[in-house]
């Protein structure tokens, strides 16, 4: 396996962000789904060697990042990482930024580096904006600059923290195409708030809540957990776990007991996700 986590935990100032996570990831795309504060970013930062775990064992690309500096560097050579937030100095061009990261990734030969920077910029559809300042790009374009630097050198382990934020539907589709090509050879780990992204991109999905794994399996299996527990009704159901009024004026009810006169509906990934989070989701869905 490319990534092996055994009993991994991490706390910030006494509050557990992750507790006792045991997961393995191999080739293909895995999506991390979960509400804000579930520990997705912490987990991805540990896998990207940006922070160290407090407890447990971490093995990445066959090496132990905590063993020695040499082994850590070896792991980092096979890693591409898109952090949740990326900073860009104001006067840096798109090309300059990606080239800077390429040097940090040890692309020392100028010609090879220029070719590689061009290649990743073309891959994310930014070749025409190479000379433009990053500060003048739109949010979605900036996200793609971040993605471009993560793809430098075809990493064997690609860690993407919310890669779809700020992308419009067409750009999302492009991203999906790019990742599906990359995923043949690489292990891709991405986090998102969007269940559609997971449905379209990921073979496997891990649901995190309050620092723990709530579900780990295929997308189909996650959807199946909601089978027979989703209904459409004409009246509001106050005691349902999750319910909302849809665009057609009917109420969609997820979980709980079937309301009288309700019609059974085909579950979606979102239904299954909301059902899985249960009380947490219901609380966060209430107006403050």
């Amino acid at each position, binding site marked *: 396996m490319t990534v092996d986590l055994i009993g991994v935990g991490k706390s910030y100032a006494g509050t557990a962000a992750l507790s006792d996570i045991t997961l393995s990831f191999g080739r293909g795309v895995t999506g991390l789904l979960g509400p804000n504060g579930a520990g997705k970013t912490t987990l991805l930062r540990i896998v990207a*060697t940006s922070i*160290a775990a407090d407890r447990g064992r971490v093995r990445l690309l066959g090496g132990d990042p905590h063993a020695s500096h040499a082994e850590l560097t070896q792991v980092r*050579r096979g890693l591409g990482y898109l952090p949740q937030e*990326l900073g860009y100095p104001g006067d840096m061009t798109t090309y*300059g930024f990606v080239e800077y990261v390429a040097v*940090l990734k040890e692309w020392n030969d100028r010609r090879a580096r*220029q070719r590689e920077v061009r290649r990743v910029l073309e891959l994310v559809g930014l*070749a025409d904006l190479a000379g433009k300042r990053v500060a003048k790009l739109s949010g979605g374009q900036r996200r793609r600059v971040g993605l471009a630097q993560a793809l430098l050198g075809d990493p064997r382990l690609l860690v993407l923290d919310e890669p779809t934020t700020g992308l419009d539907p067409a750009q999302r589709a492009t991203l999906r195409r790019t990742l599906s090509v990359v995923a043949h050879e690489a292990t891709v780990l991405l986090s998102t708030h969007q269940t559609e992204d997971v449905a379209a991109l990921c073979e496997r999905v891990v649901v995190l809540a309050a620092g723990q794994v709530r579900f780990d399996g295929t997308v189909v299996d996650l959807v199946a957990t909601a089978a027979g527990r989703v209904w459409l009704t004409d009246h509001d159901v106050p005691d349902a776990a999750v319910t909302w009024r849809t665009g057609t004026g009917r109420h969609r009810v997820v979980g709980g007991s079937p309301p009288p006169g309700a019609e059974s509906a085909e579950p979606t990934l979102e239904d299954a996700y909301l059902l899985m989070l249960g009380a947490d989701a219901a609380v966060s869905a209430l107006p403050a």
Partner: protein
Amino acid sequence: MTADTTWHAGHTLLRAYVEGRLDAVLGASLERHLDGCPACRADIRPLVDPPLLDQSWSGLRTAVESPPPPWLVRLARRLGLPESTGVLLAATASLRTAWLSSAFVALGFAVAATLLRGDVLWPFLLVAPLIPVLGVAAAYGPSEDPFEALAVTAPYGRTRLILVRSLAVLVTSVPGACLLGLAVPGPAWVAVAWLGPALTMLPLVLALASWVGPRLAGAVMALVWCGVVLGSVRRLPATWPVEATQQLTYLALATAAVAVLLVRSRRTRRIGAVL
């Protein structure tokens, strides 16, 4: 060019051209013909190896479309530094023209102040050592800084990057500050003596930054240095902050700071804990 010519290059001739077997004159005249003859251009296309064509085309695009490197990269190349190091330095905030020029304007004012009064040194002694020290502190952000996040996880290594940036700050700021120091009244050795506290504060600022981050470390260092210089103004000689006894103290402090840095980076295995 008109295309209404009756002559066309044959297959053998085109193949000889593609394989580079024609002499210069024949090759050049065939190229002239190809410029104006769509039929022959269509004939030659299948003879050219497509990957080779793509490769030369992408090479050409790279050369034409890659923006020219910033002045710092060109300067680094002139100085014989690896070009890749120049790319890293170009991303350093305190190596930018704006930062450097404001630093030297500040030092210029300090020198002017000493010249106007004629008998004081403290404005120069106050500002000169702080230029490289604050430059180093401004050369990188804390490891949680969004721009630094990528340096933390890159194989190049953040510690190495910080040291390279610090060296570059020294190289760009020290010679100019020494030259300005020559204009200051008083003994000539003052023009270089301020390097003592400056070189002491560098490891101190790096060591302190490993606990509190570079911004706060720089601010603390600046306050301490202001205290030392301004505290000596009233009762002590003008050159007191850079005299031999004080320089020995600085040396001891610098050694201690380097030792702290070494021990901390050796002991702390945690990723990104030091620097």
